């Protein structure tokens, strides 16, 4: 199995633990990832104000993966949603496709729609499978309660992303359970993390985050678990900002899924970037059997 790895702009500079742990896990699973230093911004941040530029930016990445003859594996959920959406628009709208291809031609690229875009979690779930994953684990978590955070842009709009059932998803919970950890039910599981409004309207963004954290805490979670750099930054760096500003009097640290999986597969904490968090997650390894 071979994929073109799409990291996006945030992971390599701000959420390196996600890249480290994902690579470590993929390596153990024997999935080959091909680098492409030409991949650039997915276009997500400019969707609010400039639809055409958004499609162009996304299409360029899609065209690059096609040129490599590979499907794309995306780690960030906002990148994933944005690439999926652009692919949908390009397929549906031949005049947009023509215009965009006209602009891409300058770099010798063309979007044809031959490569698929998959999120990292979907690859683990569909291409590897829960059963095979379990076989690769050497240790198991015990007595740890994990609150899975699905992430909006992968789950919705479900007719375009095709990630999972949008109202009763199971994919992420089953992946977490494969490590022996308990994936808990919590009311705000499918809600937004708040990150899209950080820097735009901080009190609103943090208000959304706060409600999730309190809800997760009340449901008894030990950790939030995510698979998106924005969610992770919001639940780690921003949560810490909220605690320091006394907007929150409790905290619920967050980890990225491949860290959990990696530990269960016997990979050491250092290779999974466990020390690169703002909030304290030092108890995590003590839940390993």
């Amino acid at each position: 199995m071979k994929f073109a790895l799409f990291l996006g702009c945030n992971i390599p500079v701000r959420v390196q633990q996600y890249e480290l742990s994902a690579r470590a896990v993929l390596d153990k699973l024997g999935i080959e990832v091909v680098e492409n230093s030409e991949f650039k911004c997915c276009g997500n941040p400019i969707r609010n104000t400039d639809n055409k530029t958004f499609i162009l930016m996304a299409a360029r990445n899609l065209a690059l993966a096609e040129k490599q003859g590979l499907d794309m594996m995306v780690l960030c959920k906002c990148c994933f949603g944005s690439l999926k959406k652009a692919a949908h628009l390009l397929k549906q709208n031949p005049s947009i496709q023509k215009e965009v291809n006209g602009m891409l031609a300058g770099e010798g690229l063309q979007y044809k729609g031959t490569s698929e875009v998959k999120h990292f979690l979907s690859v683990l779930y569909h291409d590897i499978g829960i059963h095979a994953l379990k076989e690769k684990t050497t240790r198991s978590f015990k007595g740890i309660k994990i609150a899975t955070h699905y992430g909006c842009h992968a789950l919705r709009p479900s007719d375009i992303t095709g990630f999972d059932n949008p109202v009763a998803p199971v994919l992420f919970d089953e992946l977490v359970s494969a490590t022996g950890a308990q994936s808990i039910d919590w009311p705000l599981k499918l809600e937004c993390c708040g990150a899209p409004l950080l820097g735009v309207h901080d009190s609103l963004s943090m208000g959304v985050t706060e409600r999730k954290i309190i809800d997760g805490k009340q449901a008894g979670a030990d950790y939030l678990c995510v698979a998106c750099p924005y969610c992770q930054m919001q639940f780690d760096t921003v949560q810490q900002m909220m605690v320091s500003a006394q907007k929150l009097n409790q905290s619920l640290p967050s980890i990225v899924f491949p860290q959990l999986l990696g530990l269960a597969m016997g990979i050491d904490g250092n290779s999974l970037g466990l020390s690169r968090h703002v909030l304290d997650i030092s108890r995590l390894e003590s839940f390993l059997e």
Partner: protein
Amino acid sequence: MFYNIVLYAALTVFGIGLIYKISGWFRFSIGIHAKNKTISARIPAALKGLIAVIFSQKLGTLIRVFIMDVLFQIRVLKNDKLRWLMHMLIYAGFMFLFFTHALDRVIPTSLFDRYYLKLNPFLLFSGCLVISGIAIAVYRRFILKVPRLKTNAMDQYVIILLAIIMLSGIALESTKLTSYNHYQKIWYIHILTCFLGLAYLPFSKMFHLFTTPASLLANSVMDKNSDPANIMTRQVMELDSCTHCGTCSFHCSVAVAFDSIGNENILPSERMTFLKDYITRKNINAQGLAAIQQGIYLCTNCDRCTINCPAGINLRDLWFNVREEMIQRGHSVSLMLTPFSFYRGLKQQELDPAQYDNPLHKAEKDLTDPFELVNKTEEIISLTPANREFKESADLSTRTGTYSYCFTCENCSTVCPVVGNYENPQEYLDLLPHQIIRSMGFGVKDLAMGSRMLWYCLTCYQCQEHCPQGVKVTDIFYELKNLAAKEASRSSE
């Protein structure tokens, strides 16, 4: 006699230029950290910093960086082998010529016997090195057409001047033995272009001969905790170190946006050119300001420019500093109401809390103000004739037309986490999602586009997913935001 007069004239201009430029590093300031950093504070701070480094363990770092990055330019090699070859050819050939040939009256070269009246193979050889380097430069800039590599007048000037010096030099060597007449003419061309180059050097991009090593060395020993006065001085100096090589723009995550928007300030290398000019004058017209604001805000802070810049310029800190200065200048920036603001939100502790919200409020106001109906809650709206033109214009994503299926069940507003965040949402959001959709149906543009709800939408797609009628609520919001942003940019022109 003639030779000496021109030489001293050129040297004088060169010297004055050098003083002017170097003093500029201490005279000019840039960005929000400029306050209280006067020249009288910055010069002592620089000297203090310099001495502290020389007498510390950092000296080793300096030496390593000097050998690896200044002499052998490993940073360029890692990036682009052709460019490295080009640069090495020009640089090695030029340095050799400078020390053994241009300075041969000052430093008698015992290595080779005097050149008079015989061909000098070393001269010709190094001349050819430089010429091949120039040929690669011409090939890269004019034939290869690297995407989005911009060539400005300065780039052309340097290439032409170097080419004339080298070609006339080679012609000079080869006519030495044959024709005295030609020899003299070419000698004049050669000498005059050399002196012109010398006099103009501090003002041209060739000044990077001095400043790029200085930047590479400074950045190797400086960090966030360095004296702010020195960081300011370094950031001004870094503008002189930029060679307009285009590496940053080549790696830039958003450079492709330039192809559809056409604003050169989106490309980091072009922003550097703008800033070089900007710091000396600081005045800028409204159009220029809007362009630089858009360019500098359209940045994902991916650090690729900083990681790849061969001159070792810390573009990350420069952008952060300059971006804040630009957005605080009054004109509103619609990009601020997008996820491009995430990084600024993350770093808000480094910014002045009294100023932090101002540009956000300004952007919000300028995007919603044109649609005043939202604030006139008493007004009775006449629904006929509906604004058909508006209804039809909102159809970019081909799914927008679904607004007409809405039967006002209010599901969208019920599930919306933004609505749920407020006790009294209308007060903060103007309209709730279902009301915006209904306004679309009625074709009342001012209502649909003027509410703050649009800009406070998380784009979480809960509403869209839960709409029993298949109304693409979030996609419609995206579309309305696009339209509002376009209108705002049109009206500011």
